[in-house]
């Protein structure tokens, strides 16, 4: 299960694994490598854990196993091309990544997008959010040893992926949102399929509560595990359900509304517990809010264009542009510095996972090794999003 186990005898030995002085290994401590091929890390995350007995003294993430230098790549891609690369960042929220980039380019071009495209974008975002949370729910429960919820969650997720496949032609990396609107119109079956999905979801959603929320074993493993205070969540730059589980209001859809979010009725889900169970509850309740948004929109998709005509070669004026959206994991910021050329001079993705990961050492310190999986699970780490 673990790659390498080593007992430190000489605390003065210089080791690249040591890192900072805080929580440094002393005599008798054990250093354990989890990953980069460990199933609970959901990707190639490498954690170096300093243990005293079974108590965690320090968790140190080593990143870069899937670093593709997307930011550098984007510097040589045009404003139409670079959006395709961003689907590969947080591959579970591909639509929302594309959305953030399209918004940033539109902000630079000063383009208004047609109402139909806005509604389609919001619908796709919310479907993506549900699909992402479903995958998280199944995978997190499986990390904790419960196998069944995985199949239940994937049943619903598959039907969303089928809807995506029909309209966008892809199940994961959709590349559907482009500057000016969406790439092509909705599939004629879209409304019916989404309604079928919602019916399926509503008839099955109680199963999650029966299997997990009310399950005493599950609660014991989640409650008071990985405590994160509101102040620390803000200081460590946490966003999304991770911060909302600590009572920090940070939903970009409410704070800085984009598209038509300010006209929709939905609640920002907040829990104040700050433990893993609160973060779990935020995501479960968020899925229901997404269903609420889809219900408001699915019968009210306006007719008209789905794409504004833009020039074949886009050129952003000289300056800086920043857009931010709420992905399933938190706040995604896209920062473009333009010199007036056809490619961005510098582009920075403020990915939610990167900041959320930085809090792991803080919340894991002092707890037992077995609880680490619950903490990692409820931070909802997606490694390509962290490495970029």
């Amino acid at each position, binding site marked *: 299960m673990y790659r390498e186990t080593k007992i430190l005898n000489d605390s003065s030995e210089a080791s*690249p694994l040591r*890192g*900072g*002085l*805080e929580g440094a290994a002393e005599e008798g401590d054990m250093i354990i490598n989890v990953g980069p091929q460990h199933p609970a890390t959901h990707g190639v995350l490498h954690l170096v854990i300093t243990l005293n007995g079974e108590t965690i003294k320090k968790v140190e993430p*080593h*990143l*870069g196993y899937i*670093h593709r*230098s997307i*930011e*550098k*790549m984007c*510097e*040589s*891609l045009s404003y139409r091309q670079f959006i395709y690369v961003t689907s590969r960042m947080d591959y579970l929220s591909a639509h929302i990544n594309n959305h953030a980039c399209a918004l940033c380019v539109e*902000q*630079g071009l000063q383009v208004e997008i047609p109402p139909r495209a806005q509604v389609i974008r919001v619908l796709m975002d919310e479907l993506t959010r549900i699909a992402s949370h479903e995958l998280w729910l199944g995978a997190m429960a499986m990390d904790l040893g419960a196998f069944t919820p995985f199949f239940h969650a994937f049943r619903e997720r598959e039907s969303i992926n089928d809807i995506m496949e029909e309209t966008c032609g892809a199940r994961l990396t959709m590349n559907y949102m482009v500057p000016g609107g969406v790439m092509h119109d909705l599939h004629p079956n879209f409304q019916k399929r989404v309604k079928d999905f919602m019916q399926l979801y509503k008839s099955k959603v109680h199963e999650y509560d029966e299997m997990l929320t009310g399950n005493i074993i599950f609660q014991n493993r989640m409650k008071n595990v990985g405590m994160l205070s509101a102040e*620390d969540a*803000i*200081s*460590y*730059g946490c*966003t999304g359900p991770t911060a909302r589980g600590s009572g*920090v*209001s*940070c939903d970009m859809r409410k*704070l*800085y509304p984009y598209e038509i979010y300010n006209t929709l009725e939905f609640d920002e889900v907040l829990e104040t517990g700050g433990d893993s169970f609160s973060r779990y509850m935020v995501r479960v309740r968020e899925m229901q809010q997404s269903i609420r948004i889809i219900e408001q929109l699915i019968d009210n998709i306006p007719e008209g264009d789905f794409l504004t005509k833009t020039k074949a070669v886009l050129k952003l004026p000289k*300056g*800086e*542009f*920043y857009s931010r959206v709420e992905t399933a994991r938190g*706040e995604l*910021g896209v*920062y473009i*510095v333009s010199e007036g050329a056809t490619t961005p*001079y*510098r582009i*920075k993705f*403020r990915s939610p996972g*990167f*900041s959320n*990961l*930085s809090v792991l050492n*803080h919340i894991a310190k002092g707890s037992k090794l077995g609880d680490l999986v619950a903490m990692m699970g409820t931070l909802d780490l997606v490694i390509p999003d962290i*490495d970029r």
Partner: protein
Amino acid sequence: MTNEELKIKLAEILPTATIEDAAEIGPGWITVNVEPGEWLAFAQQLRNEEALQFNFLFCLTCIDWKTHLTMVYHLRSTIFHHNIVVKAKLDRENPEIESVSHIWRTAEFHEREVYEMFGVDFLNHPDLRLLILPDGWEGKNPMRKDFEDPVNMIRL
């Protein structure tokens, strides 16, 4: 606090800074240009001043302008919801700036990323090591504009 009041307040705290509107970045955004030497004291005031409380550093990055580097800090207050961008111009040959990781803990990871990608030296950072790049990449800064790697082509 309105934007005008915020600008006056910022000018009071740091009279040497140049403050400009940055409406094209986002509605109500303000850009503050500071000298690298003044950044740490200014950051502390931004975080702790009762009327400002910029407690959320949501983005930290660097831009290579070929003649110099620019550090860019995006800050927000979760209480008052105002946004500012702080920029500091650094020397390209010997880039140095004080670390703010003890003020905003999120800066610890972000500064490590900028350190390896751009070679900026963050003074008094608790643990300035490579984060993403593997061992042996010290001193090579792949995000700089003049970086060319003949083996692994990043530029398309």
